[in-house]
């Protein structure tokens, strides 16, 4: 139990009358890589957005690194600082240079001295191989570069957990690989990751567990090999047959 970093228990969520999450139970252990897949509208994104409370759940409990997510704001900001997130649409800040995008939060949230923050940012930009673009603005970069910058920006907060919300879905096919490479390197470095993606190749390569969601429920949860070799439910089989 002591290794459990995210604990989701009986979580339910509604958008109006529509129930997006139904009785979700999930434990994530430290340094584990979880891939969440499923058809669109199945609640995958909502689930991981609940983990850093960009969405609020209405029933059940979510405990991240020993802190339960509640209404208490200060608590939320501390948790968010420990949980990095990468979005489908990158969401870089267009009015700041790449470097400033990366240093903004460390300087103002973690109160890091500007110089240290810049060094840290350059280190992470180096890791995702866009250190040479550091002084450009997001609008001048390709989609793949922007997404790698978004990963670096999240890493600059030195999070314990990284959430990826379909990080490659808005990219051209030839750019997907550069982003996935960055994510694979991150996984190999031992980061705890929850990834919502349709890239089954990536899932096979790095995931410890794969979760299949449909209509707001976790339909199947299995170790990666098991999941791809012999899926149990018919819904999963159908999904895999379409996507592979």
């Amino acid at each position, binding site marked *: 139990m002591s290794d459990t970093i995210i604990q989701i228990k009986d979580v339910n969520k509604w958008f109006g009358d529509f129930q997006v999450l139904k009785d979700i139970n999930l434990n994530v252990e430290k340094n584990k890589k979880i891939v969440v897949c499923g058809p669109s509208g199945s609640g995958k994104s909502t689930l991981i957005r609940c983990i850093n409370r960009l969405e609020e759940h209405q029933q059940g409990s979510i405990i991240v690194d020993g802190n339960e997510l509640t209404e208490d704001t200060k608590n939320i900001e501390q948790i968010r*600082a420990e949980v990095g997130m990468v979005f489908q649409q990158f969401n870089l*800040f267009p009015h700041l240079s790449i470097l400033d995008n990366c240093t903004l939060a460390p300087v103002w949230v973690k109160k890091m001295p500007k110089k240290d923050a810049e060094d840290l940012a350059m280190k992470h930009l180096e890791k995702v191989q866009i250190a040479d673009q550091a002084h450009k603005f997001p609008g001048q970069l390709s989609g793949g570069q922007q997404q790698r910058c978004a990963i670096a920006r999240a890493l600059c907060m030195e999070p314990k957990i990284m959430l990826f919300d379909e990080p490659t879905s808005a990219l051209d096919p030839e750019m997907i690989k550069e982003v996935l490479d960055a994510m694979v390197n991150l996984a190999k470095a031992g980061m705890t990751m929850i990834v919502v993606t349709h890239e089954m190749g990536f899932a096979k390569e790095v995931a410890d567990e794969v979760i299949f969601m449909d209509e707001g429920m976790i339909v199947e949860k299995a170790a990666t090999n098991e999941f791809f070799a012999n899926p149990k439910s018919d819904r999963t089989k159908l999904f895999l047959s379409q996507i592979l």
Partner: protein
Amino acid sequence: MNNINFLKPDKSNLNLFLILGLSLVFISIFDVFLSSFFKINATGFLPTSISFLLPLIIGFIGLHFIRIEYSGIRRLDEINKNFNNNNFNAVLSLLIIFIIIKSIPPVLSWTVIDANISGNSKEACTGDGACWTYIKVWLRRFIYGLYPNEEQWRINLSFISLLALGSVGYFATEKFKKYLTLYYVVIYPIIAFLFIFFFISGGPVFFDFSYGIIASVVAIIIGFFVPNKFKLYYFCFVPLAVYLSLNLFILPEEYVELGKLEGLNWVETGAWGGLALTFIVSFFCLIFCFPVGMALALGRRSELPFIKYTSVVFIEFWRGVPLITVLFMSSVMFPMFLPEDFFLDKLVRVIIAISLFEAAYVAEVIRGGLQALPRGQYDAAKSLGMGYWKMHIFVILPQALKLVIPGIANTFLALVKDTPLILVVGLLEIAGMLQMAKTNPKWLGYSMEGYVFAAVVFWIICYAMSKYSYNLEEKYKTER
């Protein structure tokens, strides 16, 4: 030689049509030119109606001849595309050219040729044109209002110093760049206020050369040797504490003051006026309405019901009442609600009223910018652990304000042009002074010159502001 079809000009006889067409157009324009500038009617031998319409007809035929598609001459194609693409547009183009030519001589003769500027009285104006003498004589009043002549250097000095202090931004080195926002938002308005208060208003101000002041200056100098860690706290508290304790507790009264200095003559705000007052009112209203508007815009989007509905009610109230009633209320009704001994100057009340009024508009403009930002920006900022204020200050507002620069400029221009309305409460800025000058018995009948002058002045101010807003837009433009 190809067949020439005058109804359908084409490329095969390009040169012929060009020469013919251009000379006809030239003749028609020349005819109008002659009649307008030299009053020569070259076609006077014809009946009046034909002679009147002749230039239009000739020009129309000429334009018809040069309307040749794909002539191969770039200029000609451009003209044909933009002014001459069909018969109706050709007539419109001709009419516009004629109207411009026709209107130049009267305007020129009124403003320059027949105008007078010499002399110092109405008798100097003998011509039919404008009487700029009137403007010349009244210029001081138009600029300084009823401010005493011998004190006007105070206004000049204040404005020149404020202009100089305002242009600091252009000369700031990299090191000081980051303090510029603080300077312009907080320090500069305070300096401006002090200038207005001590210089333009004047009055009995005592300069207090006391031991207290000397001690606190010494304390400030010592402060530079205090370790960096405590510097801020030191500067915040120690000099003030030293001053107060010396003045109030330690030294007996007779030792406190070394000397006093009388201030400048007091000029009451009722005597301020003219362009100077326009500037003062616009400047302070611009400075105050912006932060208030920003707070209201954020308030209206707040999730806390109390703040949200307070903002909504405030905005809708000020947007719902006409400015003129707001001004009346501020000058007539508002003092009745104040306690007896509490006095707030009329000018201050007016500035507050206009600021609040415009703040409501600014708030709605800024709210538009806030709403235009994609939700992802909020998500990204939140996911990095930023709270409400950090998120808005570093991520949301810089982008939103950049988006609404044109809208803000619009509101500010409207504000500057609304300032003449303070006439209704007896403050005479430039348009108010005009009103006064034109009813002066010695100078009856020159309102036209006055209004033209005011229009030009306002146009210059507003054009400068709009140019500046374009510059800002360019400066902060980044690709999305």
